[in-house]
């Protein structure tokens, strides 16, 4: 150990004590907290916790929009931190943050989703509406967060996956792609404004909980994307 000197002079040692890395380069941040082989977490424990999060968020809100906003805010910091962690865990050569929209969305669809939910998201789509080129959709047929949740009829516009939308928003913001992300139940006419309706009705029968995460990037992101595209 470096502090074997034993004298009381703390100021002298402060310079030499630094973060030590194991010889194989794998730090504690490379390991999941759960050490077992299958690395499973209790879905029931998460369901109870999330149910309490929803009722906590519901306690002081007046409307559904505000409730979704609160759930979104609960997820946002997770996304910010998760981006750093997941990039750090990548092999050193590919430790690059996504530099364009497509790479970012693929990163979310594959890495973030696998880390959080144990599988990839089901589909990635670009808005077919030419008026909204800044909108992208990540589609999950049965979001894990909604596994046990039935939303009452009077709140039919609510989708509790707003929490997962908050996580996505955090990842986008952290990567330098400021965006607004909202969760919509397919078949829900409000909010989807026609852009997400391609074949949604037929599939909606099979996947009643199907959720579309609408990622709307800020205009400056699109502007930058256009500049990068023109240069290369």
């Amino acid at each position, binding site marked *: 150990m470096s502090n074997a000197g034993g004298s009381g002079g703390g100021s002298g040692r402060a310079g030499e004590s630094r973060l030590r890395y194991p010889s194989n380069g794998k730090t504690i941040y490379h390991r999941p907290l759960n050490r077992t082989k299958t690395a499973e977490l209790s879905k029931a424990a998460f369901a*109870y916790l999330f149910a309490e999060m929803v*009722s906590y968020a519901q306690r002081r809100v007046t409307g559904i929009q505000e409730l979704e906003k609160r759930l979104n805010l609960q997820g946002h910091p997770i996304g910010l931190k998760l981006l750093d962690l997941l990039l750090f865990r990548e092999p050193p050569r590919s430790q690059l943050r996504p530099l364009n929209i497509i790479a970012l969305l693929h990163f979310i669809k594959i890495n973030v989703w696998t880390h959080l939910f144990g599988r990839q998201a089901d589909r990635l789509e670009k808005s077919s509406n030419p008026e909204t080129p800044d909108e992208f959709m990540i589609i999950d047929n049965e979001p894990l967060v909604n596994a*046990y*949740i*039935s939303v*009452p009829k009077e709140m039919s516009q609510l989708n*509790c996956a707003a929490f997962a939308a908050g996580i996505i928003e955090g990842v986008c913001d952290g990567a330098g792609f400021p965006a607004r992300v909202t969760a919509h139940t397919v078949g829900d006419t409000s909010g989807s404004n026609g852009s997400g309706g391609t074949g949604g009705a037929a599939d909606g029968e099979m996947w*009643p*909980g199907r959720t579309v995460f609408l990622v709307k990037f800020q205009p400056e992101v699109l502007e930058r994307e256009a500049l990068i595209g023109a240069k290369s």
Partner: protein
Amino acid sequence: MTVFSLVIINKAGGLIYNRTFHEGGLNKLSTNDYLVLAGTFHGVHAITARLNPVKSAPERPLSNTPGVPGGILTRPEPPSGLEVLESENFRLQCFNTLTGVKFLLFTDTTQTNVDVIIRRIYELYSDYVMKNPFYQLEMPIRCDMFDRKLLSHIREINNR
């Protein structure tokens, strides 16, 4: 073999869920009658639980006086009360959970494995009702997800 309908009664004797799976098996009752049925059954169940003849306490070795280490204190099983009610045309099985919720399953008299079905329903209840943040305890169950899973489970049994 058919499952006719399911009734769930909360621990206060109120009807919180009622669904018919098979038309024509049982006569239709009005909503009010279902409420009365639930309340009556709850009362009868409470009485039958008291009626239960006292079982003779199991013989205990002398060393097992309470408070002496080594002796295992055993609490007798709580009396179960009414479990099955059978008539010419239907069979009613009652499953009373440890928390006092009652699941009543009406089937025809030839239905087998009713306790397995009812346990599965209890499982669905604890998943899709108790884990739903919008469900208030002791209140009527209005959960789409529960309805959907229950219907597909029962449909599978009825089509077997």
